[in-house]
């Protein structure tokens, strides 16, 4: 796994420099302008709405991410591993729930299990919560005091291995190594 030392931000009093701020604005501008192009199409007149929208999106994105301990950096190789996993699990999840409700008698044994996530980055946690709901038979119902309440369609089996696997994949996506803290 490639580990880039230059991506590690300095801890403590980290004042954003001017070039850092410009690159933050620039990447957001590219991203949001691209999204607008996809949504609105290539008609130049659409930018009458699009330009203010993109500017507001940049501002709110900067505002929402201010005070974050470190910038969001996605690892491309990890993304290439996560996407097929996610697609495959989505299909499995859909087939699983369809098979349960299409029986003459609905086959469920619902209940809750608790899981303590080790992911650190807020965006990673959000992705983890959302991905849990797309895995077969699990739904992230609550996150409180660092504990995720997972609702399961079949509570008899232990969900921990599957959740750990998902968490590791998402951790790699955000450059967080979770292997060493495995229980």
């Amino acid at each position, binding site marked *: 796994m490639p580990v880039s030392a230059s991506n590690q931000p300095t801890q403590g009093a980290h004042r954003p420099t001017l070039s850092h701020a410009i690159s933050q604005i620039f990447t957001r501008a590219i991203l949001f302008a691209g999204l607008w192009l*996809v949504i609105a199409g290539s008609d130049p007149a659409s930018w009458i709405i699009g330009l203010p929208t993109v500017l507001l999106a940049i501002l709110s994105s900067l505002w929402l991410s201010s005070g974050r301990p470190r910038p969001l950096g996605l690892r491309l190789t990890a993304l290439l591993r996560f996407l097929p996993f996610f697609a495959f699990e989505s299909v499995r999840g859909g087939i699983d729930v369809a098979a349960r409700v299409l029986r003459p008698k609905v086959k469920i044994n619902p209940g809750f299990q608790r899981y303590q996530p080790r992911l650190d980055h807020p965006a990673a946690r959000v992705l983890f919560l959302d991905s849990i709901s797309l895995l077969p038979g699990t739904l992230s119902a609550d996150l409180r005091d660092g504990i995720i309440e997972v609702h399961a369609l079949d509570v008899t089996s232990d969900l921990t291995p599957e959740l750990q696997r998902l968490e590791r994949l998402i951790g790699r996506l955000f450059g967080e190594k979770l292997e060493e803290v495995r229980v």
Partner: protein
Amino acid sequence: MGEAQIALAINVISILLAVAGTFFFIAGTLGLLRLPDIFTRLHALTKADNLGLGLILLALLPHAPTLLYGAKLLLLWVLVLIGGATGAHLIAKRALRGDGEDML
């Protein structure tokens, strides 16, 4: 293989994907009706409907007139995935804590 056969093959694949997508939408709706409580119903909605939409968008993808249009279809899917999963989490959270506005 001629152009007509390729077009036919694409159409057949599209139809199969769209039928599969419709199946999962129906399964999701059936789950909403048959499952006993709010949490299990959310399972059916998030999973079956997301897969259903994904398959239908995949069926439409070869027929997209422009690249931008194809990108729009994929973007739609991503946005619905995020919206669906986040919405399900928020509904489940309110139901679990019992502090929703319309909870008695």
